């Protein structure tokens, strides 16, 4: 069975500083990996996804993530955070490219706090 671990429940970053959110996955075959963001009171918005090819993936809002098969990781990064980035971030894994065939398995999320 597939699973996702997000080791950090909360992370606090100063505005303008760089950010890295950790994600480790467990899956027997080729994983399809996703990062979603959830702002307070809102649904989930897709930030980026990894299917194959280049292991560094660019997403919306200036985010990027790097797939490292040897470490079973898919960490999310941003060079300079803005106050509007404060939200809950979820890493997810699926067995199919869009996650659509059998749904997504999510981690428990990382709550990002931005200090002024």
């Amino acid at each position, binding site marked *: 069975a597939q699973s*996702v671990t997000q080791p950090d429940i909360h992370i606090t970053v100063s505005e303008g500083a760089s950010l890295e959110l950790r994600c480790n996955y467990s899956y027997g075959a080729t994983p399809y990996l996703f990062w*979603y963001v959830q702002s307070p*009171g*809102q*649904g*989930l*918005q*897709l930030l980026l*996804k990894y299917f194959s090819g280049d292991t560094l993936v660019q997403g919306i809002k200036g985010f990027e993530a790097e797939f490292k098969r040897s470490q079973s990781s898919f960490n999310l990064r941003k060079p300079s955070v803005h106050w509007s980035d404060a939200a809950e971030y*979820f890493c*997810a894994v699926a067995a*199919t*490219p*869009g*996650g*659509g*065939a*059998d*749904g*997504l*398995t*999510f*981690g*428990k*999320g990382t709550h990002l706090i931005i200090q002024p």
Partner: protein
Amino acid sequence: EAGVAQSPRYKIIEKRQSVAFWCNPISGHATLYWYQQILGQGPKLLIQFQNNGVVDDSQLPKDRFSAERLKGVDSTLKIQPAKLEDSAVYLCASSQAGNTIYFGEGSWLTVV
């Protein structure tokens, strides 16, 4: 393009009462999902439909939860009777042909 629509957005009920949530997926999306997101946790898949057929309902507590998608478009999720531990956000999502899943804003349930 309109997104996934859900209603009601917020509901407070007493335990042992019933509640129903409605979802209208993105037009043309054959696959529809209901996820449960308990506070402090990631979303958990409850049920997945392909058109009007159930693909996976292995994590749906069938003694109290039911869901249907009669015409292959809209869907309803019902809880009867509700328990305190059912307090959560119920997220509906849809996708087409195994592609990216799009989520609605969720229905927030508080059971008191």
